[in-house]
């Protein structure tokens, strides 16, 4: 059985179904049409045909051969190689190749089977390439659509609506299903076959109880009928038989019929009198959704009208129609799966097998296998670009009206809460209209003029800048009050006022958040300043020094002894931690951006205050031009978090590190090496030495 055979006989059944659907759709239960689709699907998917004796009589002239073949077909070489290659539906693919020869060759004249195999080797690979050129893009479209949607659907939240919970307890299924609610979908839907999930949209959840029970019943029936699986199978068939226009017709109509059949079952479940209210429920949902969207298109008009019409015309089943339907289904099945048993030479099938060997069904499976793997990996590393995004976020901050705090690595976070306008403080200004405000008090104050932000004793911040530290000043003002004035922020560095451009990206509407930052290469004394041309309510202002880079251009991977690992795959460890090797043992280890490699806990035990720890890391310069690293001395765990508590740190751009820390107090310590650069860092070797 070849792909072309399947597509032709499958196509005929589709044609038959379309005709029946057209003529008898109104009188016939939808389940009949669904069964016809199912037969077409099986015909298109299962490379098996059943020899029947009838054609023997008809095709008398080849009676003898057919007798031979009846037995040989029963063995079915198709099945043999299906079993060898794999069990999934793609196994039928290799047999696409023989088609070209088979179509032209008269089945009766296939005595010269060996020759066609060799002769058609090139056209076969061309045919395979042409076929794959259709399959792969379609498969990619479907899989990416599936992955993207799944990612969103997975974010749904369990539905706690009392009526829904009660409804579910009354409607059990063999498979356990869950009901969730999502504000990221515009229409209720069902997904999952083994563990089905019903998702309600917000607008659906807000419906009254009778509408809700229609909606839930509809989705419940989808689950009961395995409709989601059917939809996926339909998509798979479309991928395989993309060259058959009838399959596209089936894809569209069968997808509609899934809904029609489901609607029919709902109406049966609630009784015919419910038709109108069920139809109104659908229209109301449709209306609720259309209101949400800016653009509406009329593409679907026919489908929805057909659907509403079908619901309203649902009738009790007519016995005659059922008998007719049963007959049709029987004829369809026979027509689909029977092969007229004649001289379709065994040789043909031998050829099939040979092709499978020559052209490698495994190759094809490989392609699909890789696809599947790619899909899984994608799911896993979906947030790898987090750091990159958080860098993007830094640029976008001021688009949002938010209180903004940038965490200084060595400073605990302040918690900020909103207060009423009466609670805003005001500060005394000097004769020049300048107020000196300690950072710790620089929140919720009214500012008219210039504020210079100082440390707690009125001095400038002496920030220990490393090689690539960024000073950040940020101001958020209350936007509840409409204030026309302008805000300017910047630094006073070593006595000089340096205005740093907060370009429009930081502050598009001249309101909300102001944020600017600058990299420094050496220790600097800075004040921050805020200037307001009109009185303003300032929510919070911050000055911080950020060490490290927020950028991530590389995945969370590290390489030890040539083996590459991804720390996202190890759910037991923090995501940015290299596991399996300690810093002091690191030889030829390559770590990606943001990754930390720690020393073992044993090496720095029972240290005394005043001891020194020298850390040297030899970094391979060829691996990257941009090297940024941080080395941290950590003691125990931070009281508020379960992360190692940073006692001291240093960081630099140098290609190679030689850092000595003085131990501040007796205790156990850990050294962390962090890759802050945008690229991989290749550690040749690292040593940790205790100097007593």
């Amino acid at each position, binding site marked *: 059985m070849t792909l072309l055979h399947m597509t032709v006989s499958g196509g005929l059944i589709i044609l038959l179904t379309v005709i029946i659907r057209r003529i008898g759709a109104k009188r016939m239960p939808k389940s009949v049409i669904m069964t016809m689709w199912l037969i077409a699907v099986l015909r298109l998917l299962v490379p098996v045909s059943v020899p029947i004796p009838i054609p023997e009589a008809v095709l008398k002239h080849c009676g003898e051969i057919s007798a031979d073949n009846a037995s040989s077909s029963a063995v079915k070489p198709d099945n043999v190689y299906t079993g060898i290659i794999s069990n999934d539906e793609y196994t039928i693919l290799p047999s696409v190749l023989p088609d070209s020869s088979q179509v032209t060759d008269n089945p009766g004249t296939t005595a010269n089977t060996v020759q066609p195999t060799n002769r058609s080797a090139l056209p076969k690979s061309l045919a395979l390439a042409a076929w794959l050129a259709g399959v792969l893009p379609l498969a990619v479209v479907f899989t990416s659509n599936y992955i993207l949607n799944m990612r969103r659907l997975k974010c749904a939240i369990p539905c706690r609506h009392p009526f829904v919970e009660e409804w579910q307890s009354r409607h059990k299924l063999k498979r356990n299903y869950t009901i969730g609610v999502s504000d990221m979908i515009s229409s209720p839907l069902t997904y999952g076959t083994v563990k089905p999930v019903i998702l309600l949209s917000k607008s659906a959840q807000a419906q009254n109880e009778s509408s809700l029970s229609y909606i839930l019943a509809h989705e419940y029936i989808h689950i009961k009928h395995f409709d989601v699986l059917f939809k996926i199978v339909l998509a798979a068939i479309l991928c395989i038989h993309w060259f058959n226009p009838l399959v596209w017709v089936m894809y569209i109509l069968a997808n509609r019929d899934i809904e029609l059949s489901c609607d029919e079952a709902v109406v049966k479940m609630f009784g015919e009198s419910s038709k109108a209210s069920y139809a109104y429920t659908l229209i109301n949902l449709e209306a609720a959704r259309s209101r949400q969207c800016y653009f509406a298109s009329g593409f679907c008009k026919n489908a929805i009208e057909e659907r509403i019409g079908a619901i309203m015309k649902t009738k009790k089943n007519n016995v005659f129609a059922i008998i007719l339907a049963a007959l049709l289904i029987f004829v369809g099945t026979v027509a689909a799966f029977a092969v007229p048993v004649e001289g379709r030479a065994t040789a043909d099938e031998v050829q099939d097998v040979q092709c499978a060997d020559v052209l490698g069904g495994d190759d094809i499976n490989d392609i699909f296998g890789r696809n599947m793997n790619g899909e899984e990996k994608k799911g896993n590393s979906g947030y790898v670009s*987090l750091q990159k995004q958080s860098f993007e976020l830094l640029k976008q901050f001021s688009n949002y009206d938010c209180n903004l705090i940038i965490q200084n690595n060595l400073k605990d976070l302040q918690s900020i809460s909103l207060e009423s306008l009466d609670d805003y403080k005001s500060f005394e200004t000097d004769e020049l209209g300048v107020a000196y405000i300690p950072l710790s008090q620089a929140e919720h104050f009214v500012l008219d003029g210039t504020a210079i932000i100082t440390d707690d004793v009125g001095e400038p911040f002496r920030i220990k800048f490393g090689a690539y530290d960024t000073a950040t000043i940020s101001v958020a003002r209350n936007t509840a009050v409409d204030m026309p004035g302008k805000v300017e922020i910047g630094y006073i560095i070593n006595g000089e006022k340096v205005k740093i451009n907060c370009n429009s990206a930081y502050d598009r509407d001249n309101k909300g958040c102001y944020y600017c930052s600058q990299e420094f290469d050496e220790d600097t004394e800075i004040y921050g300043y805020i200037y307001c041309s009109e009185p303003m309510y300032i929510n919070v202002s911050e000055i911080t020094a950020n060490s490290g880079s927020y950028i991530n251009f590389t995945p969370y991977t590290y390489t030890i002894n040539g083996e590459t690992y991804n720390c996202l795959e190890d759910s037991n460890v923090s995501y940015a931690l290299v596991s399996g090797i300690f810093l002091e043992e690191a030889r030829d280890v390559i770590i990606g951006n943001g990754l930390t490699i720690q020393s073992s806990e044993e090496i720095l035990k029972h240290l005394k205050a005043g001891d020194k720890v020298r850390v040297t890391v030899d970094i391979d310069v060829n691996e990257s031009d941009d090297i940024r690293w941080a080395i941290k001395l950590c003691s125990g765990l931070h009281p508020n978090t379960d992360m190692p508590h940073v006692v001291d740190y240093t960081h630099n751009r140098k290609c190679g590190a030689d850092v000595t820390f003085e131990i501040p107090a007796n205790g156990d310590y850990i050294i962390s090496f962090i890759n802050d650069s945008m690229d991989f860092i290749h550690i040749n070797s690292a040593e940790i030495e205790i100097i007593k």
Partner: protein
Amino acid sequence: MSIKLFDSELKVMDVLWKHGDKTAKEISDILNAEIHWNMNTTYTVIKKCIAKGAILRSEPNFMCHSLISKEEVRAAEADELISKLFDGSPDLLFASLLGSNKLTDEQIEHLKKLVSELDRSGLK
């Protein structure tokens, strides 16, 4: 303008508002217990929060810090955000109650009329 967040993102923010700063792993553990999200789902949502400026991530250990207070958050109204999200039609591979195309007001009116007509003719 306040940040608009989806319910899923609010769940993550809720954890930070309730428990203070947490690592992504901890958030994932909490949400797994609470609403059965798996790790990847939680990270996907955290990523969205970071992109929207609701969470600041810091190293080490993927520490998440809330940048916004509960009062400043508005639940996303189903508006252009949803229509943007719906580039990839979910009715392709999922059994969606409604198709992915939107109807105009006139079409909806037409459908309602159709139902009432068919309803009446059915009664006769």
